[in-house]
């Protein structure tokens, strides 16, 4: 049974359709990357999973229960780190951690103290004096010092420095080792690549792609740069080949992984001198999905790809 299963989830805020038939499945024991551009509905989905927002229609189950009706029972079994942590300004960091832990049903003293040390957080300061990164650490320490089945992390590392990012990744691996499930919403692609077993990419309130990173790579074109003895012709007629361009005597093109054989068969006839084939980087993968969604992207380091991504 999946830990999180969402089918055709819809949530509207007035005229805005924040979630428009979203699907999501997170299996037990996996670290699931939850990706999408700003405003695509990630936080809304997470808030529905936490029973903070009410869904308009569709199905949502967390640990086999209804997140709205069984909120309190579920919250004993999960821990949450919001993307923008706000705390009680006049409590100290240590008090806020203990309070959140205790409200969830208890935390482990020893791992709390270890985590404080590892994240280098001073618990004696008033929460109002913390920087964004330090507020984030408070929520992370509070979440990771409870032993629960599911961790819901909404951009947990925004504001953390690279050193702390590494500590965070270690902690996620530790809880995964212990058998917990993690839903990780993130914009840090290196983090996703390092941690996630599977990812779901959403856009405008819908799931556009879901699978392991390897599976997603297969859905995206590979960039090929080839140098041949004679000018290559006839590429445009091949299936699955796109964006053929001549640059400095070399041919640049994109090919769907499924049509690699046909491409190679054609290239061989022109005397191949050199050939590089680059699988899509995670970044390209996301730029393709985050952008306007048509299939013309996956151009490494090209200005066009960047423009598409920035759109």
């Amino acid at each position, binding site marked *: 049974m999946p830990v999180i299963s969402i089918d055709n989830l819809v949530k509207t805020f007035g005229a805005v359709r924040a979630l428009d038939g979203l699907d999501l499945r997170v299996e037990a024991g996996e670290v699931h990357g939850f990706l999408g551009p700003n405003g695509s509905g990630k936080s809304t989905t997470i808030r529905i999973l936490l029973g*903070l927002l009410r869904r308009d229609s569709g199905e949502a189950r967390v640990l086999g229960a209804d997140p709205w009706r069984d909120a309190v029972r579920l919250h004993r079994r999960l821990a949450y780190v*919001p993307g923008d942590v706000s705390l009680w300004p006049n409590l*100290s960091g240590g008090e806020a951690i203990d309070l959140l832990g205790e409200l969830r049903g208890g935390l482990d003293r020893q791992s709390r103290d270890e985590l404080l040390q590892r994240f280098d957080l001073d618990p004696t300061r008033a929460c109002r004096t913390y920087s964004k990164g330090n507020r984030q650490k408070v929520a992370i320490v509070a979440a990771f010092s409870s032993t629960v089945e599911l961790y819901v992390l909404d951009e947990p590392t925004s504001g953390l420095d690279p050193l702390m990012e590494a500590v965070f990744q270690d902690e996620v691996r530790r809880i995964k080792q212990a058998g917990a499930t993690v839903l990780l919403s993130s914009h840090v692609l290196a983090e996703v690549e390092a941690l996630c077993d599977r990812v779901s990419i959403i856009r405008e309130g819908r799931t556009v792609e879901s699978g392991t990173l390897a599976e997603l790579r297969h859905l995206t074109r590979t960039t090929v740069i080839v140098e041949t003895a004679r000018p290559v012709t006839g590429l445009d007629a091949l299936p699955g080949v796109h964006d053929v361009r001549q640059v400095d005597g070399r041919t640049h093109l994109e090919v769907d992984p499924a049509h690699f054989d046909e491409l190679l068969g054609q290239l061989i006839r022109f005397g191949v001198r050199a050939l590089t084939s680059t699988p899509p980087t995670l970044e390209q993968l996301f730029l393709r999905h985050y952008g306007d969604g048509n299939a013309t992207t996956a151009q490494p380091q090209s200005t066009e790809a960047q423009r598409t991504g920035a759109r």
Partner: protein
Amino acid sequence: MTALTGTRRLVRLVLRRDRIRLGIWVLGTPLLGYALAGSVAGIYPDEAARQGYAATSASSLVARAFNGPIAGTDLGAVVVAETYVTLALIVALLSTFAVTRHTRQNEETGRAELLGASVVGRYAPLTAALLVVVAANVLAAALLMLALAAAGLPLAGSVAAAGAVGGVGVAFTGVASVTAQLSVTSRGANALAAAVVGLSFVLRAAGDVLGDTSADGTRVQSAWPSWLSPLGWGNQVRAFGGERWWVLALPVVLLLAGVALAYALAERRDQGAGLVVPRPRPATGASWLLSPAGLAWRMQRGTLLGWAVGVAVLGLSMGVAGDEFNAMIDENPAAAEAINAMGGGSNLVDAYLAAMLGLFALTIGAYVVQALLRVRGDEADGVLEAALATAVSRTRWLGTQVLAATLGAVALLLLAGLTTGLGYGLVTGDPLGQAIELGGAALLRLPALLVVAGVVTALFGLVPRWSVVLSWTALLVFLLLGQLGAVLDLPQAALNLSPYTHVPSVPAVDPVVLPLVVLAGVAAALLATGVAAFRHRDVPS
């Protein structure tokens, strides 16, 4: 001077942000002054009535402490005695909050950093705030002067009285500009400045109580402590009693000194830092804190303590005044009638005490609103989200807040009754008996406060975004119905809208149970509605 670069733009920003607040302040205080002057003129229409008022005011220590030194028997002098302290406290706090809002609060929220990184001089934000606040005080004073003159008071006295009120605002603008440099938080800056307001009140009250009465018994010459208090300076102007114009220069001197000090401090400190060094906090949460109830207590205790001190001081003073009241009534039947209309019943002292308890119940209503609206504040801040993502149900969370506010209201009501009874008992000779009787009488007001709690809870559940504005509006309506209902001859149906209308005015009349039960029922229905609505809506909303 480059340190002031950008001041003009920042002034426009302050005006844009506060156009409504400033409008209410600048128009509201003169209107309030006009209304109060009119009602005083109605109660003390002739020389004889005012003679009696002045004589009582000069001889009564409580009147001296709360109304300041009476400056004679002119109508203007009576108006000043009845209105000056209220207006002065209002403008002192308004000025303080406005200065803090545009200085320390910007630093606390990080907005100042954004501004400071642009072409804005070091002194510009403080200067812009000061310019606007001083201008608002001057404008409000000018309008107040016109209002007093329009109410038929002599021009010179009106200028002096309005100048005295405006001067208090100007003086505390200077004070707040310094406290905004000292504390890291805007709450702390406001609290420090409010403490100075409180100290000023105490010094002024002490100086006026210790002062000498003139030979004819209608004037008071304040002792030296009043001169240490910016609130006291306004009295020393002696509006309508042989004006001393030079005293109006004192607030300006304080403003200039405060601003100079504030600039010097701003030059020496880092952006966002204060001069009050924060002490280390506990690294772990005490076990009593780690529950919704513990958290509610931690969040409320400071506020509650402040309220308790205020209620106790007022209660004792009102109680002590109860005895002097007998004398005053003999001399002024019109005032007696007014009290009687508020409190009801046949025994005038009981009517007075009942009226005071009624006022306490209304005031403590503000505590209930303030305490309960914290839930909305937490929701808007995003803290509520973190709390509700734990294993705490919405019902438990909101229920705890309601319970905490209710217990706070019970404590304050009881304290109000006990201290009023103690004060009255001390001067009439039965402190314990009076304290117990009035303590019980005060608690009978609780059902009205439960309804207030119910209204806030229902609004929070049903219309969270509007709950802050609507809750305060509801309380204001209750206040107006209670205070003006009888005067304006409103129909009973309108008066019945306020829960305070239905609580028996004990000790002036005998307690009746039925209305209390009905009020409790209404409160329960409102609370249930609020909790049910909160359980079914989105968070945050």
